[in-house]
Structures are given as structure tokens and as C-alpha cells.
């Protein structure tokens, strides 16, 4: 029986909405005066008071609620969940960046958290100076850093630039150096937040390899947050699925991933207005996203390259105040890899609402040249430059096979999701 190195006990974290955005004494006084007269607070952002958004009590909401779990020595734990499920809050509390509201976490050993790489890098200092600074910020002693210096430099592949100020580094070099310092910290517990999403593919592999090394061969405990399910399944053996601030599932990593994916499926089958994970200030709200034929019949799936339309039902809080409205529809594959986006601004410029409730249609007159399968649609609405409503994984779009090439065949989807016609000449 391995010993427990992290014990999370009934952890809750509450954030305040509205008030935090004031930053000005006059506004606080205004809110206070409104409360006294029991009038609505004029400073709570629009839409926040809406029952449609998550569990809100007055101007407070719980980012984490009663979360408990244990991590054993040497575990590789993957934390998954949708945006806003509380993953980052959990990591922040664990890294002691912010304090919990209730409950506690008990930890055995040194924790190093990589919520970001290159934290505290100063642009004017050289790579070498920044290695020392960054290492010290993360709690390393001078001798430790000195001993590891060559290894860090070699890992980051920046040997020839080590005495150049980092402001002249490419962003790739910057990230590599940052990860290299963190990877050589030798903490007992390593906490990693999606930093691997940056850097080139080769370096990403190297990072994953290093993390595997750290946990398998050196017996360290790793906590890893990612949206990349493949990385989670490869790296982790235990998985936690967070949903709306509480633990939905804890168990084997692949079971957790399964659970997460099926929950996304069931969410997507819900209509947009029932969803609780949308973001934005609510100046405009999308109450429905439909796939339609050009003449307006609702469709479940579209044949490859057949014309169709995406319809958004939009509700404006005060249409006369919306001088600039921009819609974006995002299309990604089932692994959340973004394939394309359709932006109203690029085609029509900024739009103005005609009524307080209207339907906006995005017409794809030439259809989509995508290989048959399931795709995900998401949308965002920006009003006067501010995000009004945004929902990813809002709906599934099924593309059905149809004749596309001269032969009636289609390439397998692992060769690429986008189909393109070509002509082949022999010269």
C-alpha cells in the first residue's frame, strides 16, 4: 500500500462576481447605496444575474464545491473537465496561488507547479540569469540550479544563446527554456497545466517523455491537466473528471476520459438553451443553433458538399445599444482540433440587430469539403467588442458520404479531414 501524498478534503472555493470588477471606490459606494435602498446593483455585469448561468448565490459563485480525493505516491493523475469545471481553480489552490474558501489540502513533499512556463522571466536578463531567477522563484537553491545548469541548457536546446537576453529569444526557445527549468526541479509532486499545448511537436513529445520519466523512473507524483485526451490516456493511470466544480468520476484514466467524452455527447444532444457552460456577459444570447437546408428545413446531417445553413437564434438584451455584432461559428473534429471558422465580420462587416430576437443564418452555399464523420460546432457572439455569448461543443454536425472525386471513393479520415479536388498531369 503506497502512502497518500496529497489529501484533498472537502475543498470549496467561492469567487465573487460583480464587485471584483469595480476597482473604484465610487462604484463600491454606488453598489452599497443601491443595496441599502434594495434596488438592483447597477454594477453587476449583465447576464451574470441570469438563472441560465451556473450556480450563483447573489454575486458569488462556487468554482469548486466539496471536492475530496487522495493521491498516492507515484500516481500519475489526469484532471479533465470542460472549461469552467474548476480544474484551474484546483491547481491554483494546490500551487498556493490562491487560498480555498473552505476545506483543506494536505501535502507531503515539495510541490512544483507549472501553471505557465517561464514565470518571472525578465526580458532584459540573459538566458543564464533567467534560469537562476526562475529556479529560485520555484524554490530551488543556488547550488541545485548550478548543478543542473548544463542539463537544463541542453534540454532546452539553447546552448548558443545562453548569454543573450531572453527578449531576443523566439517564443519557442522561451517556452523550451521555461519547461527545462521546471522539469529539472526534482519536486516530489509535479503539477502541470496544459503547457504542452505550446511549442513545436518535437518538443511536445520531449516534454511528455520527460514527464513520463519523472513519474515512472524517478517515482514522482504527477498531476496533469489537459484537454488533450490522448495525452491524458498515454501519461496518466488515474483520472478525475470534474464537472461544475465537483468530482463527477474518479478512477482509471481511460474510464475517466470515456466518461468525459460521453458527458460531452449528452451535453451536445441538449438544446443550447439548456446548457450551463456558456460564457459571456449576456448582452446577446443564443437560444438555439440549428442545421438547416437552404430553404429552412431542419436537418440532422448534411451530405458532403451539399449546400446548407447554420441558424443561430439570438436574443438581445437591449438591441438599440448593440452597434456592432459579430458572430463566429467554429468547426472542430471529434478530438477538439479546430478545422475552420466562419466569421460574419469577414463577410458582412459588423451587423446591427434588427429586432430584440432574430435568427441569423450562416449559409454555406458550396457545402463543406470534409470527409464523412462527426464534427462539433461551437459559436461566439461579440457585441460592441465584448464577448456576449460563447459555447464550444454546442452541436454535432454529421457529414454523410457523397460522390466527391471522379471515382466514387473517399480517402480514410486519418489522411486528413479536408477533401480537395486536384488534377494530375503527366509531363
Amino acid at each position, binding site marked *: 500500500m503506497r502512502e497518500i501524498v496529497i489529501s484533498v478534503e472537502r475543498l470549496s472555493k467561492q469567487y465573487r462576481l460583480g464587485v471584483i470588477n469595480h476597482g473604484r471606490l465610487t462604484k463600491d459606494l454606488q453598489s452599497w447605496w443601491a443595496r441599502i435602498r434594495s434596488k438592483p446593483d447597477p454594477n453587476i455585469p449583465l447576464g451574470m444575474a441570469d438563472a441560465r448561468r451556473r450556480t450563483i448565490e447573489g454575486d458569488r459563485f462556487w468554482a469548486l464545491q466539496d471536492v475530496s480525493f487522495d493521491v498516492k505516491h507515484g500516481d500519475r493523475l489526469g484532471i479533465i473537465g470542460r472549461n469552467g469545471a474548476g480544474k484551474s481553480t484546483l491547481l491554483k489552490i494546490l500551487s*498556493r496561488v*490562491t*487560498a480555498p474558501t473552505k476545506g*483543506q489540502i*494536505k501535502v*507531503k513533499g515539495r510541490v512544483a507547479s507549472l501553471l505557465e512556463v517561464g514565470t*518571472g522571466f525578465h526580458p532584459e536578463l540573459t538566458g543564464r540569469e533567467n534560469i537562476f*531567477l526562475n529556479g529560485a522563484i520555484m524554490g530551488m537553491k*543556488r547550488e541545485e540550479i548550478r548543478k543542473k545548469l548544463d542539463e537544463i541548457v541542453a534540454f532546452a536546446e539553447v546552448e548558443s544563446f545562453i548569454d543573450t537576453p531572453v527578449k531576443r529569444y523566439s517564443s519557442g526557445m522561451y517556452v523550451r527554456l521555461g519547461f527545462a527549468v521546471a522539469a529539472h526541479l526534482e519536486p516530489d509532486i509535479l503539477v502541470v497545466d496544459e503547457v504542452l499545448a505550446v511549442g513545436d511537436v518535437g518538443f511536445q513529445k520531449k516534454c511528455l517523455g520527460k514527464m513520463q520519466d519523472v513519474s515512472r523512473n524517478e517515482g514522482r507524483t504527477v498531476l496533469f491537466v489537459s484537454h488533450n485526451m490522448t495525452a491524458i490516456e498515454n501519461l496518466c493511470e488515474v483520472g478525475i473528471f470534474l464537472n461544475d466544480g465537483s468530482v463527477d468520476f474518479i478512477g482509471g484514466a481511460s474510464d475517466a476520459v470515456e466518461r468525459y467524452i460521453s458527458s460531452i455527447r449528452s451535453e451536445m444532444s441538449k438544446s443550447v438553451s439548456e446548457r450551463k457552460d456558456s460564457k459571456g456577459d449576456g448582452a446577446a444570447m443564443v437560444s438555439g443553433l440549428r442545421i438547416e437546408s437552404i430553404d429552412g428545413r431542419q436537418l440532422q446531417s448534411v451530405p458532403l458538399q451539399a449546400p446548407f445553413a447554420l441558424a443561430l437564434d439570438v436574443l438581445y438584451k437591449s438591441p438599440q445599444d448593440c452597434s456592432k455584432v459579430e458572430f463566429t461559428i467554429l468547426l472542430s473534429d471529434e478530438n477538439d482540433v479546430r478545422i475552420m471558422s466562419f466569421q460574419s465580420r469577414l463577410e458582412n462587416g459588423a451587423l446591427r440587430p434588427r429586432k430584440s430576437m432574430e435568427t441569423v443564418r450562416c449559409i454555406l452555399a458550396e457545402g463543406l469539403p470534409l470527409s464523412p464523420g462527426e464534427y462539433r460546432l461551437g459559436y461566439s457572439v461579440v457585441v460592441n467588442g465584448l464577448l456576449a455569448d460563447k459555447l464550444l461543443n454546442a452541436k454535432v454536425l454529421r457529414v454523410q458520404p457523397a460522390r466527391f472525386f471522379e471515382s466514387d471513393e473517399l480517402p480514410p479520415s486519418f489522411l486528413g479531414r479536408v477533401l480537395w479536388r486536384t488534377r494530375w498531369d503527366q509531363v
Partner: protein
Amino acid sequence: MSAKKNVDGEWTTVIKPKANLLNFNIAEVWRYRYLIQLFVRRDFVAVYKQTILGPAWFLIQPIMYTVVYTMVFGNLANLSSDGLPRILFYYSGIMLWQYFAQCLTKTSDTFVANASIFGKVYFPRLTVPISVVITSLITFAIQFALFAGFLIYFMVRGFSVNPNLWILSLPLLLIAMAALGLGSGIIISSVTTKYQDLRHLLSFGVNLWMYATPVVYPLSQVPTQWRWVFVLNPMSAIIESFRYAFTGVGTVSTHHLAATAGMIVVVLLLGVVLFNRVERTFMDVV
């Protein structure tokens, strides 16, 4: 955040909602002393990289002020300098005031200026204001060397400049100024995380404060019915004591110094209490 050893020594760290208000956690700050050293180095190196004159700026600034004040307040307004050579009088006041003002303004920026680091990694937050004070102290040491030069020059030229045993109080005066700057800077930084208005107030507030302090005029010139204002201003006793120690001219009273010490202790304690409260949750506010 509370990083207390558990009684049975089983857990290294227990992360809890509330910390003790007077939890200085000096041991933890001491463990991070190397980081303080690097912060000081960073602040020095970074400020003067890509400048032509480099560290000379440490001296240029107070010299320019001294020249301007000598012309404006000395020659034009004809304010008294307590019989001291004007350069010595103004330079000493400016040097001390700048040390204090630097401690104050840079400390007051702690949370806002470091929000991006504080939001990503934990280390004792107190290391930042402490490194600010050390940086200011080094600047002061450089400026003080020039002051010593002026002092010797005027003594050799036979001006009535009489350093005395009060010189020994210099370390205490420096600590007092650092504590006052640190304490009030921390109070301001704790409050500015929520109310950013105070940052605008601060820059001219420090200027106004200077004119309410015997920097460009001696305390002896202040009418007796207004003296109480200066008793309430901890900086006036410090500057007068410094001038008295190095030149033998100035108004020092033990009552005044005791009141000053008391006020500084209160400000510093209040600052640390506020800092401990804010450092735990300010990331949710910024």
C-alpha cells in the same frame, strides 16, 4: 498561505482557508533569501541595461534636484537653510526623501506589478517588498558616498559643519525610514488591489508629503503653533535628526523621536496584518 509543519510532522504543507494575521513566517522568507538576492540583482541590472550613463543615474538625479532646489528655494525664495551650505542642506534632504519615497512607491506597487508572477507560482510574497528595500538601500549607499564627499569638502573649507555622536543613529534612522516606507507601501498596495484610484493619489501624495516635511526648509523656520503637524509626520524627525547628526544643525527632541518610533511601529504592524490578509486572495481580485 500557511505552511506550518504539522504537529506529528506527517504533512509538509497544509493549505487552509485562513492564516494567522500576525504570521510573519520569517523562516520561510529566510529560506528564499537567494530569491531576494536575485530580485535585487534583477532590479539593478534591468534598470540600467541599454542606458548610456548606466549607474551614474543614481547620482545624476539627486544632483539635479539639488541644483534646482538651491536655485528655486535658496536663491529665489530665499528660504533659510539653518546656516548650512545650501548644497549640503538640500542634498541631504533629497537623498533621505528619495530613499523613503522609493521604498514607499515601489512597495505600493507589489501586487499590481507582480500580478502575473503571483498568479502562477507561490513563493513568500514578502520577498518582493524586502528586495525593494534592499535595492533602495544600495542606491542610498551610493548617494551617501557623495554626501560624505560634500561633507568633507565643506569641513575642510572651514564652514561650520559639525558631525557629532548622533552619527551612530544612522542605521536606526535608515531602519526607521525603511519600516515606514515598507509599512505604508504595503498598506497602499493592499488597498490598491481593490481600489486602483489610490495609485493616482499616491504619486502626488508623495510630493505633497515632501513639502510637509522639512526637506526644502528647516524645522526651525516653522512657527511654533504649527509644530504639532510635524510631530505627526514621522519623516520630519528622521530628517532633522540626520541633519543634526552630520552637521550639528537641526531641531531634535526625544519626545518627537519617541512619537515617531511609536507611529512607525503601528504603521508597520498594520501593514503586515493587511499584507497577510491580502496575499491569500488578491489573485481573485486583480
